[in-house]
């Protein structure tokens, strides 16, 4: 075979030169890359993880010495569309409200009873998964609790107001894994304020679903106006007008413990189990709101509160 021009073939020396150039470029790039290692493993300023790290210890709060344990567990509905703490929405014990006063220490024991990954934290933010208060977190979205695992953390209420305990995995809060921690003012036994002269009128009507499985005030669960939250100031005069629009018997009362119809406070009862408000009747009660704290208004007929006749009554 004859060629017009000779064929030149790559020599070892030239291969070595090419390799040296290519490896040189990669090594130089690698050096640059690892010089910036701290930069590229750093977190963006807006990120949840950066905020967690930035949170110092909680500001000095006069600790009351009162401690109580709260056990929570992550659960999921079988189709994974509903997430919650302790019980699925609509069942007893779903996302329980936790009552505390400033300075109380709440010890959380949280177990993952679901099939997915979860993490726990307490935040003041009304939505989202940011602003987790330091010391309250158990695991994190990046290193979550696996199914069956559990963890402990504690929360010292530093100020009055509402805090939320949530699943800090993004999106889980929106799917239902959120509950309230309602923190009342400091002091072992909150005192009622002097009468303020302010008066409020509320209408709370008993309603029942046609199959009688759901009971509520004003509107059935899932519709607008269901069990409205009532907030008044300590010392305010409160008038509650209650109509029984159902077909069963009901009675009204504001209680300190939602599970105990006998724990009625402020002389707020309308009727009782033995002398109930009959269907179609309307009765009212007027009383003065006492010591600040979180209370519940319920139907004091046993079992009705558990079926949904229960709302929050908050005295500030």
């Amino acid at each position: 075979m004859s060629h017009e021009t000779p064929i030149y073939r790559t020599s070892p020396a030239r291969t070595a030169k090419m390799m040296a150039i290519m490896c040189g470029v990669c090594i130089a790039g690698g050096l640059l890359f690892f010089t910036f290692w701290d930069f590229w493993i750093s977190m963006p300023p807006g990120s949840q993880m950066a905020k967690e790290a930035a949170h110092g210890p909680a500001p000095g709060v006069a600790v009351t010495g009162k401690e109580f344990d709260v056990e929570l567990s992550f659960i999921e509905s079988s189709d994974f569309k509903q997430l919650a703490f302790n019980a699925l929405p609509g069942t007893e014990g779903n996302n329980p409200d936790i009552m505390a006063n400033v300075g109380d220490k709440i010890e959380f024991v949280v177990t993952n009873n679901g099939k997915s990954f979860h993490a726990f934290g307490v935040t003041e933010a009304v939505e989202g998964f940011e602003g987790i208060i330091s010391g309250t977190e158990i695991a994190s979205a990046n290193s979550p609790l696996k199914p069956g695992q559990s963890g402990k953390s504690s929360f010292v209420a530093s100020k009055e107001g509402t805090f939320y305990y949530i699943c800090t995995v993004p999106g889980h809060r929106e799917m239902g894994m959120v509950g309230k921690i309602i923190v009342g003012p400091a002091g072992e036994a909150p005192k009622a304020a002097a009468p303020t002269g302010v008066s409020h009128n509320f209408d709370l009507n008993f309603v029942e679903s046609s199959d009688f499985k759901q009971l509520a005030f004003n509107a059935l669960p899932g519709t607008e106006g269901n069990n409205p939250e009532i907030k008044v100031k300590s010392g305010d005069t409160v008038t509650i007008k209650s109509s029984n629009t159902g077909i069963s018997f009901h009675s009204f009362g504001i209680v300190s413990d939602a599970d105990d119809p006998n724990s009625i406070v402020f002389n707020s009862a309308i009727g009782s189990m033995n002398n109930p408000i009959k269907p179609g009747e309307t009765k009212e009660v007027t009383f003065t709101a006492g010591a600040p704290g979180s209370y519940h208004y319920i139907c004091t007929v046993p079992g009705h509160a558990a079926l949904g006749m229960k709302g929050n009554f908050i005295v500030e």
Partner: protein
Amino acid sequence: MVLELAKPRPIWQIMFSTHHTDVGLLYTLTSLTFFFLGGALALGIRAELFLPGSQIIADSMTFNRMFTVHGTTLIFLFLLPFASAVGNYFVPIMVRYKDMAYPKLNAVAFWMIPPAGALIWLGFADFTWYATPPYSAIRAPGPAADMWIFAQKILGVSSVLGAINFVVTILKCKHPDLPLSKVPLLAWSFLSASLIIIVAVPTFAAALVMLLTDRLGVSGFFDPSKGGDPIAYQHLFWFTFHPEVYVLVIPAIGMMYEIIPRFSRRPIFSQSSGIFAFVMLAIVGFSSWAHHMYSTGMSFTEKTVFMIGTLAAVPASAMHVFNFIATMWGARIRFATPMMWSVGGIALFFSAGAGGVANAAMPFDFITHDSYWVVGHFHLFVMGTIAFGSIGFLYYMFPYITGRMYNEAMGKIHFIMSMAGTVMVFFTQHVLGLYGMPRRVFDYIPLPEYIVMNQIASVGAMIIGISMGLWIFNMIYSSAKGKEANMDDPWNLGGKYYFPHQAKTPHH
């Protein structure tokens, strides 16, 4: 090689040359470098997923960065530049012109790639290669994401410039005696892919500018809190990147059209059906972008339209496969390494396409969406089809580039290990997806099925990794000390085809 095409020149003269074979060499070496870098990240990802929990990577953010850069690197810095390398070498020779139409533009298009690669690798963004808002618009970490956006802008300009060059070279610079219908199918594949690039890329370029201004806070195109629509980004993105899939796969099929007739020692069964299928693919590629988005709440009518548009790609793809089979049928095939890679690539192309047809059916898509099924499906295309075609073609170019022969036995071992590894990784991932494992996860639920399948996939990835190590050794050793190739017929096939080593001497 071009390295040695004419009288040996200093390497810097090759680096700053504008001759098409020199630029082709630069494209080849750059794309291979990024292939190994991106592949190393893939091995890291598979090692992490070998067991549930954190293995070698500290947290999910680092993991996100790794698979983002893995995907971006292998698509934009390996597959596209490698196709450009092949086009640079072969298109001018096939249309019988002395060089590309615009040699300097050609060199400019190449020299945009290294800075873009540097931006991607030094930034290490974490928002996946889709950069989907709202995350990318609102929270993706600072300079890394912006560097990625600028790198994509640069790469977009580079591929448009390259595409214009190919179109002009093929349509305006071909020899007057050569009718378009007789232009070899490899050159036709570059013509169709280049036309797709010119039509598709501007949409993504616009989306990138919108994303950047969103990140700067001056606009809210994709930020729902400012009245924007994140889904709009997905439409803009996929309008570019579904056709882009065909930009990647069409040159790979073109490479098989070069190898299969040559090693079957026969002309191609039907030149005209090959041309027709390329043009068909280039057109129907634009009618299927929203099949990536069935689960974003489109109306039933929209979904049906895109389902049919997706299925319209099936006949065109099948025409290529039948063309290959008809060419090989009853031929005296010589199973040298390039032919093995091409035939393996066809088999995996068929498998990937079968999965794609199943996936195009929208009820099924709702099950597989965002699961490992999708990962297995598109990797069968990008690795099984496109990378297999490209690696086979590199073996085919090797003697013409270096004047030396690669080690045939090592090439065959490389193929067998890669084929086995690819099947292990990506077929398993299909099943894993049907078991419900989501994609882009750093950790997974410790179900025994998940663990076993992830381990099969990880072992397969290691097999591919070892075979690629064998390959790079073969390439380096053979280019230095391999036996001298018979430049007229390196594989003793008999007859002559093209004469890549007789490309015009560089004058620049």
